[in-house]
């Protein structure tokens, strides 16, 4: 019997927490997310302090932001968070095929979000809102761009995990990786809740 499988050939009920390595990964990942929270906290603070420093003749957030586009992006990311939790539920049922399908849907939704963000930035630059236009534009691109980079990283990471699941299947080694990647994806969604609130909606109010 291999140490990686149960006597009856089945995985334990929570394969992500069945080994010391798995439990350490989950705890370590919470600490990593704590660091990420501080990182985004500083970017939010910088944005809040600089968001009115637009300079003369430069576009303001009120003029630039198109709320329907932001709402669509929000909906895509929110749905992807739901599909990644469905992936974890499939993992707990040891349905590897469903797990992979939900992960693929999650990646596609994340990709849709990223395409909308790239289009949005492209549009803003054409409106004269470049990275160095004003303190507002720099802090805007740093905060929202950092979040976008996190989405891109998540897409690459989960795609690699899909490949690993197809090659190695669901084991007590692959399960913790899938579990922490889902935590990361939810965290990205949580950060976006504050971005659409603080950057876009408050920016539209004034």
């Amino acid at each position, binding site marked *: 019997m291999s*140490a*990686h499988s*149960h006597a009856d050939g089945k995985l*334990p*009920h*929570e394969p992500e*927490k*069945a*080994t*010391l*390595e798995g439990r*350490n990964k989950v*705890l370590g990942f*919470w600490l990593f997310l*704590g660091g990420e*929270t*501080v990182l985004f*906290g500083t970017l939010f*603070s910088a944005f*809040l*302090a600089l968001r*009115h*420093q*637009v*300079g*003369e003749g430069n576009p303001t957030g009120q003029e630039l932001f198109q*709320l329907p586009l932001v*709402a669509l992006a*929000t*909906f895509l990311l*929110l*749905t992807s*968070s*739901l599909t*990644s*939790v*469905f992936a974890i*539920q499939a993992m*707990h*049922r040891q349905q590897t095929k469903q797990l992979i399908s939900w992960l693929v849907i999650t990646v596609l939704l994340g990709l849709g979000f990223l395409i909308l963000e790239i289009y949005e930035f492209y549009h803003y630059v054409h409106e004269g809102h470049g990275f160095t236009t004003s303190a507002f534009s720099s802090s805007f691109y740093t905060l929202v761009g950092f979040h976008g980079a996190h989405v891109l990283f998540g897409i690459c990471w989960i795609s690699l995990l899909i490949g690993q699941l197809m090659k190695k299947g669901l084991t*007590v*080694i692959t399960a913790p990786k899938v579990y922490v990647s889902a*935590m990361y994806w*939810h*965290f990205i*969604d*949580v950060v976006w*809740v*504050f971005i*659409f*609130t*603080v950057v876009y*909606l*408050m920016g*539209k*109010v*004034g």
Partner: protein
Amino acid sequence: MAADNHTLTEERPRRHRLEGPQKHVIAFIFSVVLTLLAFALVMSGEMNETFIYIMLVTMAILQVIIQMAFWMHMKDRGHLFPIIGILAVPSSHLPVSLWHFIGFGGKQPIHN
């Protein structure tokens, strides 16, 4: 022999109840409703700015609590440590942010 950290260490079989998707769908619907309310509040136009700010932040915090509880498994057993950590950060930052935001955040002179 070196310890293998991948060895199963779950000693006694615990009873696990597999949860259905219902709770997560409800959390999703709550999140969508809160998001739509936030967008509608801003798109509806003229209203007191401070009131809108407070409403928006309240709805964002509510949505994050729902998502963390259900989607990041905070409501599940064994999550006391992350909960304490998460509460420590905003409780130290929020008063400063609110003071800045309501006090003079919106009325700073623009230096060119």
